[in-house]
């Protein structure tokens, strides 16, 4: 701060003038942001601490941490709210552990292959990206169809023909096959995005590094590990953080394919929360679960960033 601006009232007036100048541009947007993005996140806390009713004029009695306590009550009792919550939580963690490496490896492998060739690059890019841009409902319909229990469904038919299974599998009716379908679905829909981001990163790796490596007698794998990966570290970091975030927010796949069935064993947190709120109208309990999940996602992504930055410097 400069001396002549030091007096409080002058600075205040200057700030006011600056706000007056910028307000025509950011006034309405800020209002919308506050009302429909920021305030809802804060109001969630209020809803979670009360017994909220959406009836007009209804009272919202304060119940403290009661809704949060429910998340930890009777965890081991089958059929309790908490039991279903933690099954959903487990499935979220599994979704991260399976779909993040799946998308990352497949997307990077495809990107590296496309980067190598000269002919028909764009055709491949378009083909692998189509799944990314298609509506979730449409691709969910397709997956539901090719994983039907009939012997004529695409997946059963191919597996029967290859003698990998002896009789048709009811994929979406068993916990682990249904979970596997959800994971395959997520990987199939998501790896094209990884490919696009990684192709851009590959374009930035200096060519002469590869030439030096070739002179040193490095094979393709050596070059990938010792040249490509270090040069694209930042993009990989960006991809990992975004994929983990996406996998933690897994929702629409489950909502469209299994809705948590059989018996909530394929459920995930977001679907659990949405169903509690809009099918059972337990707004307060759902909000409490949401805050728990939000805090978990927020702190893990913060920790992850710390840890990966730390790894980068050492």
């Amino acid at each position, binding site marked *: 701060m400069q001396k002549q601006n030091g007096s409080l009232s002058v600075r205040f007036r200057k*700030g006011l003038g*600056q*706000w007056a*100048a*910028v307000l025509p*541009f950011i006034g309405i*947007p800020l209002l*919308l*942001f506050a009302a*429909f*993005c*920021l305030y*809802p*996140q804060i*109001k*969630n806390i209020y*809803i979670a601490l009360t017994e909220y009713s*959406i009836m007009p004029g209804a009272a919202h009695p304060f119940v403290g941490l009661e809704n949060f306590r429910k998340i930890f009550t009777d965890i081991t009792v089958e059929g309790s709210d908490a039991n279903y919550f933690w099954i959903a939580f487990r499935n979220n963690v599994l979704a991260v552990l399976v779909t993040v490496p799946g998308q990352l490896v497949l997307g990077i492998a*495809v990107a590296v*292959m496309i980067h190598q*060739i000269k002919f028909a690059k764009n055709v*491949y890019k*378009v*083909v*692998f*990206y*189509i799944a990314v*841009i*298609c*509506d*979730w*409902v*449409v691709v969910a*319909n*397709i997956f539901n*169809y*090719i994983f*039907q229990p*009939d012997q*004529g469904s*695409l997946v059963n038919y191919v597996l029967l023909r290859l003698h990998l299974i002896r009789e048709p599998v009811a994929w979406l009716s068993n916990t682990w096959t249904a979970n596997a379908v959800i994971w395959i679905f997520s990987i*199939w829909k998501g790896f094209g995005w990884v490919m*696009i*981001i990684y*192709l*851009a990163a590959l374009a*930035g790796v200096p060519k002469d590094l590869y030439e030096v490596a070739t002179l040193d007698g490095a094979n393709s794998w050596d070059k990938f590990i010792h040249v490509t990966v270090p040069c*694209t570290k930042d*993009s990989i970091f*960006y991809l990992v953080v975004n994929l983990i975030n996406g996998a*933690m*927010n897994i929702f629409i796949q489950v909502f469209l394919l299994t809705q948590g069935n059989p018996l909530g064993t394929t459920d995930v947190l977001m679907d659990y*929360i949405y169903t509690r*709120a*809009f099918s059972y109208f337990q707004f307060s309990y*759902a*909000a409490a679960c949401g805050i728990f*999940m*939000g805090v978990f*996602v927020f702190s893990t992504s913060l920790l992850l960033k710390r840890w990966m930055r730390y790894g980068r410097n050492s």
Partner: protein
Amino acid sequence: MSKKRTVSHAVIHIVLILLAAVSLLPFCSMIASSFMEIKGVLPDQPVLFPDFPLYTANYSRVWFENNFSRYFLNTLFLSVVGMALNVVVSVMTAYGFSRFEFPGKEFLFNVFLLTMMVPAQLAIISQYTILNDMKLIDQYGGVFLLWTGTCIAGNTFFYRGFFESLPRELEESMFLDGASRNQVLIHLIVPLSKPAIGTSAIFAFTGYWGDLFTILTFIKTEEKRTLSVALQLFRGQHGTEFGLLFAASVITVIPIVAIFIVFQKQFMQQGLTEGALKG
């Protein structure tokens, strides 16, 4: 050396073609099935190619009898208006943040970033209570307010970086000629930012076109539904009439695929912008 390279390229092509076939097979199955009468039990073999002459009754039934023509127009209207609002509001905010100094600017920007780190879907519960209090449930107005309010943080982040990379000299000479802030924004910044605005507008459009949960949660009247929601509910009613279901699916997805093929470059640029900005 070059022979070795030719062989390795051929191997890569074979692997990629196999992968592409696996990726495209589900789509083939969808398109072929939409031209067949499939009800209840599936045929003994998966349908990958339609029979000729094509059976088109599924399409006319979906379009005329099941109201999909109406849903198509609804979706088009919502996506176009949503995209326009999204662009106008985001460009204005980013301009404010990149060209003005005001107290609390960086604090506000950090609040934007903070809200981006919390799963946005979680807000849907309280958003419902807010729109309910405003009597905006089942109104397109409520949907527009939500879409616009929730796009600002991420888009400001995206555009601000782009605006700040634009050269200032032209702007200064425009100001010297007596141009206002508005004129500079409309006649200089916006034309220079066409690629960035185009990319983000296309993503907004496709995102709104395929939006499921906002419409499913906040729109109740049947005539106001969009394609995604209608398709989802249609599946509940005609779950095993796969031919019909896939005709509806193809109608829903064709505009998006068409946009993708026309604007390929903008889609692929996503990698460039995101990779370059944060990578």
